[in-house]
């Protein structure tokens, strides 16, 4: 006729404002908790995705060569060292290797670039092997070079924007005064490729009068032992190997501090909400001592009262939890933007990844913690003696 659940539920309706405020508290902490947990997971996979977008997991270059393009550009190409192009052949046949592509990095001083000139980064790449490394490249205009020796260029999104070039426009290689024709302009990738100008490898070698290369990009086969390959590559004379797994680990270390902070905030938010739950339920128990006593004269056992009050906690926590997690789904983009602001390095893509599994896990955490905080008020209610109902007047 009337279930215990209904009794508990209708009890919560008695002080609507208080119940609502408690619900909002739980909801906000559920929101924060699930978003932060989502970030914890999302960040790592976004970083992985970013590194996958490099196209290759390993780079081989001459020992002592600054491998970051940015460094190369700052030094104006003076620090560059070269390796023999024939090294490609000794790498391509190793069992762990999927694809290999040779790259020649060059930096030229452009007096017309910005205030007092700047460095323009050129990548000599093979039309036959390089595009396969970057299958995610999308062209805003045009496409790749027509042959390996064409006087053609493909511009990264920002490079094209800076120089205001369209497909079909000419572009002059600074220092060398060689004119190339722009055949393709890439979409934005969010990586260093955006500022780069790609030229056929042979063309760039001819322009710079160099028959070597600076870098070999290696795509490792799926599930192959990268570490083993790395070690074996070090057998090659005078090379250094850069592994993006290592790069990733370095970044993850940087972000670890941020993640610890984030988790602490989540835990604090949860604790605050739980203090709210204890407060609300305890108040409602203390206000109802006489009524609880009357329930006992009606035949309710201490355990019945305990579970009645516990059910109230359960209802509060599960409703607040579900609402908060719902909010987190709806405003996931907003959390993304907020998180991006505070991070040292933010990869592209979805940073706050909330899925059903995580949502259920968070809900479980909230319900369990809620039930724990409900124990004291419920125990207190269970101990109320029926006499208090008559004496309290």
């Amino acid at each position: 006729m009337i279930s215990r659940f209904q009794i508990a539920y209708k009890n919560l309706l008695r002080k609507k404002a208080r119940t609502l405020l408690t619900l909002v508290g739980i909801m906000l902490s559920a929101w924060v908790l699930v978003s932060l947990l989502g970030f914890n997971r999302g960040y790592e996979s976004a970083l992985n995705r970013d590194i996958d977008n490099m196209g290759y997991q390993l780079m081989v270059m001459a020992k002592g060569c600054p491998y970051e393009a940015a460094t190369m550009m700052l030094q104006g190409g003076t620090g560059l060292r070269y390796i023999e192009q024939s090294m490609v052949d000794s790498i391509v046949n190793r069992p762990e290797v999927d694809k290999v592509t040779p790259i020649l990095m060059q930096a030229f001083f452009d007096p017309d670039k910005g205030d007092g000139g700047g460095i323009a980064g050129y990548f000599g790449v093979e039309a036959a092997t390089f595009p396969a490394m970057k299958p995610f490249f999308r062209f805003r205009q045009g496409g790749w070079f027509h042959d390996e020796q064409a006087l053609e260029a493909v511009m990264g999104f920002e490079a094209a924007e800076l120089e205001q070039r369209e497909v079909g426009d000419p572009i002059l290689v600074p220092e060398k005064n060689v004119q190339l024709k722009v055949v393709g302009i890439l979409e934005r990738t969010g990586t260093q490729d955006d500022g780069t100008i790609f030229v056929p490898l042979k063309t760039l070698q001819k322009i710079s009068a160099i028959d070597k290369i600076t870098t070999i990009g290696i795509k490792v086969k799926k599930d192959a032992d990268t570490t083993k390959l790395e070690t074996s590559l070090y057998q090659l004379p005078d090379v250094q190997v850069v592994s993006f797994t290592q790069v990733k680990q370095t970044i993850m270390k940087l972000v670890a501090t941020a993640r610890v902070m984030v988790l602490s905030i989540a835990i604090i938010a949860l604790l605050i909400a739980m203090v709210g739950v204890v407060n609300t339920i305890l108040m409602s128990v203390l206000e109802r001592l006489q009524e609880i006593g009357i329930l006992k004269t009606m035949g309710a056992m201490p355990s019945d009262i305990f579970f009645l009050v516990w059910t109230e906690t359960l209802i509060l926590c599960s409703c607040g939890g579900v609402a908060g997690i719902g909010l987190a789904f709806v405003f996931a983009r907003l959390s993304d933007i907020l998180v991006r602001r505070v991070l040292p390095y933010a990869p592209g893509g979805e940073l706050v990844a909330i899925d059903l599994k995580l949502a259920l896990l968070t809900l479980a955490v909230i319900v369990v913690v809620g039930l724990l905080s409900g124990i004291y008020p419920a125990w207190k209610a269970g101990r109320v003696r029926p006499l208090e109902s008559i004496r309290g007047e």
Partner: protein
Amino acid sequence: MMTTENGVSLAARGLTRVYRRGIEEIQALDGVTLQIRRGEFVAFMGPSGSGKTTLVNLLGCLDNPSSGELDLAGRSIFGNGKILGERELTRIRREVFGYIFQNFYLIPTLTVRENVALPLAFYHKPGVEGEVERLLGMLGMEHRMDHLPGQISGGEMQRVAIARALVNRPEILLADEPTGNLDTKRSGEIGEVLQELNKSAGLTIVMVTHNPGLAKLGGRLIEMRDGQAYEN
């Protein structure tokens, strides 16, 4: 059966109750001996503080006495210094007793019908199906079943409380100043209801009241003074 052969339902011998408040001791009951038979309507009167509530609480197994014995239908409940825990007291109470008080303690967010059905959520004697509607009908409350307590009068609230006390078909109804919050007219009506329950259903009623008119309704009047019971 809740009665012994001679029809005695409740038998108290030398019941005392001492309250301790710090170092101060209050002798609220000072050796009360009495018997209540099945089907009786007993009224307790007496000045405030004379121990009426204390006695009725002991008779209704809401509290343990400091000393003395209590038998319920021939079965010893209190005696020889044994103290019953909350669970055992609850088991006895829900089988035997219904309680009403000066305050009605209805739950404001439950309808009249739900308030009466409340005890059934915790304990359900077999064969009490339909009892909620039957009692509310008998008490003239059928047109108020889906109202909330805030929408009915004080007299009606006490009727709801009576129905709630009776829904599990108790043997004995304990009423501690049931009309204490009602005006003369409503008090009279509640008195009639109780008398009717006693006469037609054979319900044993133990009532505390300050209202002489109400006290006369019961066949038996016991005077309380300084923790002792006097009967002429």
